[in-house]
């Protein structure tokens, strides 16, 4: 196995490229995805190599982007739409929730919707309003969509290809504050990949389990390492798929550790964290030695960016929750 060091942005770019090479029906569309290569350079060079017919700079209208992608999918294409920032997906909400998510069901299975929607998400880049949101719960609550979040380059390269290959619509969340962090990526064609909708045990642990996704996976890993210095053996699970959830590894872990903390930066009310807590409690009630705790953002709009560090769960807040759980 030979690997290459790539940033998350470059790894997704490589994944897109691979998907476009493999299937000429794959299109990339969105605002500034062409000449510019996207504001995060995730589509860098694609228009140059695949042409304007396959890498499409659209008018500035998110509903238009998703709505026309639906039509293109009906025509047999596999559009990969970029939403420039998390906070700009809402104009497309109607097309996503009422149309994209439901067309397969409404048509009794006769219409396929192989549309991927890539969304850079989350805070921590010092941005102005509307550029730091975590809207994943809206989509996970929506039947008919599949929702995944990558956490780093190695995984993202494969995941984006699997998302594009899926005949179901996939909302693909990319942790924007991790775009420039590098890791080794195995680009060897044909390398077997874990299933798109499986969670991954990144680190086993005997004392407590952290479950997370997207940008907070790294925070959780760092927290577990710090805890290890204090003699605590903390496991970390990356959910990867937010809908459907793959909770079996989490249940396994909870049965062993009895302590579970869900870490995400989204507002906690009616969140994915709440759902994980509810489901795990339902299925592993007698294994829990403490309630499932949720470390998250807060139930406020994302605040001014100088408060990034306070809004986002950090190592301290994660460890604080671990302590609270263990002390229960």
């Amino acid at each position, binding site marked *: 196995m030979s690997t290459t060091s790539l940033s998350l942005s470059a790894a997704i770019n490589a994944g897109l490229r691979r998907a476009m090479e493999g299937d000429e029906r794959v299109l990339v569309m969105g605002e500034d995805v062409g000449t510019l290569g996207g504001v995060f350079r995730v589509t860098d060079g694609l228009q140059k190599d695949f042409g304007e017919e396959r890498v499409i700079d659209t*008018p500035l*209208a998110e509903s238009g982007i998703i709505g026309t992608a639906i039509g293109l999918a009906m025509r047999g294409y596999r559009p990969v739409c970029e939403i420039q920032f998390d906070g700009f997906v809402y104009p497309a909400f109607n097309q996503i929730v009422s149309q994209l998510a439901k067309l397969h069901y409404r048509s009794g299975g006769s219409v396929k919707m192989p549309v991927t929607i890539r969304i850079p998400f989350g805070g921590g880049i010092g941005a102005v309003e509307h550029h730091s949101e975590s809207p994943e719960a809206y989509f996970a609550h929506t039947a008919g969509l599949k929702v995944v979040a990558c956490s780093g380059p190695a995984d993202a390269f494969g995941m984006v290809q699997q998302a594009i290959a899926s005949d*179901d619509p996939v909302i693909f969340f990319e942790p924007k504050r991790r775009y420039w962090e590098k890791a080794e990526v195995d680009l060897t064609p044909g390398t077997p990949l874990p299933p798109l909708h499986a969670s991954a045990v990144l680190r086993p642990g005997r004392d407590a389990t952290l479950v997370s996704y997207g940008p907070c996976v790294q925070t959780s890993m760092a927290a577990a390492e710090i805890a290890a210095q204090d003699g605590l053996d903390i496991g970390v699970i990356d959910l990867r798929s937010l809908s459907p959830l793959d909770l079996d590894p989490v249940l396994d872990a909870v049965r062993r550790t009895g302590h579970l903390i869900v870490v995400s930066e989204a507002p906690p009310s009616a969140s994915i964290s709440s759902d994980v807590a509810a489901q795990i409690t339902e299925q592993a009630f007698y294994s829990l030695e403490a309630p499932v705790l949720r470390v998250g953002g807060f139930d406020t709009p994302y605040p001014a960016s100088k408060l990034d560090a306070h809004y986002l769960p950090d190592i301290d807040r994660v460890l604080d929750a671990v302590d609270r759980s263990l002390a229960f």
Partner: protein
Amino acid sequence: MTISPPQRPTTSGAAAVQLLTPEGERVAHPDYDVSFRDQDYRALYRDMALVRRVDIEATALQRQGELGLWASCLGQEAAQIGSARALRPDDFAFPTYRDHGVTWSRGIDPTLLLGQFRGVKLGGWDPNKHRCALYAIVIGSQTLHATGYAMGVAKDGALGDDGEAVIVYFGDGASSQGDVNESFNFASVFQAPVVFFCQNNGWAISEPSERQSRVPICERSAGFGFPGIRVDGNDVLACYAVARQALDAARTGQGPTLIEAVTYRMGAHTTSDDPTRYRLQAELESWKLKDPLERLKAFLYRQQIADRGWFQDLDGEADQLARRLRAECLSMPDPDPVTMFEQVYEEQTESLEAEQRGYADYLLSFEAS
């Protein structure tokens, strides 16, 4: 039918294209000069008559509790049949919940519509098979789908004299939606082979069309960079001619056209609606004089293209159709509850399968006890 080579409308504005007057007189038009054969005239009338019969039967079925709802197309048969019969087999149509004349023209058995309005399934047919999308219920959403589909047609290189075109239906109310205007812009920017066919039937439920636009809807498209044209929506010949020209322009790479077909919703918005609350009977009466079937019937008689016997046969055919639909409607089985969990995804998820198993077991627990 033969038609002069496609050309772009040179003017846009409020003068509606007409080829058949309300009195049933055939008039000429400098730009939309279609010559119909006798069998074409008869076929168009037959379509309209049968669709009207379907509509009446469905309304009756709803009244009798056999359908949950019905959206009547009464009065709009000419707009729907005229435009949809202008489609070639490979063209693709995107209709709304009211466009039974469109689905009819695409060869979709009306029984399939009844299944949807009865509530035994959500959508009625396979869009790919009939080259006709599901009925759009979220107002305006389908205009973007049609535009995207048409962008795909262009990408496929399926333009030219043998090319494909797309038509999308929407109402006067829909013209206010952001999605519709975004679709105009995408279609224009990408020169997508799509025809926007707006049936201005005077009303969006209780709101008159003036509440949706201060100017004729056909004028909307110029500001997006493509032509708009108004047609007498109760004149099946004009609707055919105008749609055909726009479709041919689209398929030969000349981009989108907006057509506003001025017509009238002669029935209630749906069977749940009571139009006496918001509009005057006199308005309806005045539109009855412009009925799309009556004027073609008058023409057929006067020109001796059809005689009493032909009309009687058609009535018989319509009655038979209605009887069959009724019988098929009444015999539709309720859906199996566990199918509710299927086809949410192309690739079923374990968690939904578990929900399905759970519910199946739950149902079984009643049978056991």
